[in-house]
């Protein structure tokens, strides 16, 4: 089992907390650069970031569930014209 450490001046716990913000590009340039450095040098955090990114991509690529025709009909009946 790995243990948490400091890479690129950042503790794994700090990096963990910022992963989604990093994925969404909401961190400052300096912060993002340091996180990238940590991810490149820390196998555990690097892998987690890659897998969260892949999971989010897969979720985003799911086709939209269509409105069942029966729901559309019942809604049209329920809304006064």
């Amino acid at each position, binding site marked *: 089992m*790995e243990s948490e450490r400091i890479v690129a001046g950042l503790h794994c716990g700090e990096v963990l907390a910022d992963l989604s*913000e990093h994925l969404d590009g909401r961190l400052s340039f300096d912060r993002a650069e340091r996180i990238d450095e940590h991810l490149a040098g820390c196998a555990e955090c690097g892998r987690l970031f890659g897998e969260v990114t892949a*999971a989010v991509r897969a979720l985003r690529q799911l086709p939209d*569930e269509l409105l*069942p025709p029966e729901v*559309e009909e019942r809604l049209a009946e329920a*809304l006064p014209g």
Partner: protein
Amino acid sequence: MTADDAKVSDETLIGRTAAGDPSAFDRLVRRHQAAVYRFARAAAPDGPPGDTGDAVEILRETFLAARRAASRHRDETSARPWLLALARQAIDRRHPRFREADLTPLRELARAAGWQSGGGGAVDESGLSVETAFAALPPEDREILTLCDREYFTVDEAARVTGLSDAAVRTRLHRARLRLLARLKERPHGE
């Protein structure tokens, strides 16, 4: 949405709805009903399989509230966040809930997703499909993922729909993504 329909902005449809034009309201409904349905399915607790009565009721309440409030929302450039905020209110009325703080330590969620715990299995064909993994999440997680990763709402827009602070939206989104990943790594039963 047809090409013709796309030429009319949400803003125009809301304005005409406010002025009492029933065809504008009808177009607003048709343009957004599937998204409101998907949001209701994600954010409301699961009902009996195949039962769509709850979703129909949430849709109906959402669009009736939208028609009543249209005159106060003429400047909405996109109707979607406004409509989903109304849907959120309709869900709250039907399924009252108090907001529990999510006290699970972040490290625990991350370990369940394989961080610092030997990987916990890869995400591959032997794991759950993303659709199944998403459906198995609690409604709060499905809600925030729907808003941020399906509708591509900004943090502000997601905060408006959920009534959460911007900081709480970001925290919830991160936690929901970690739980989704942990689900994706679960082996189907019996393997």
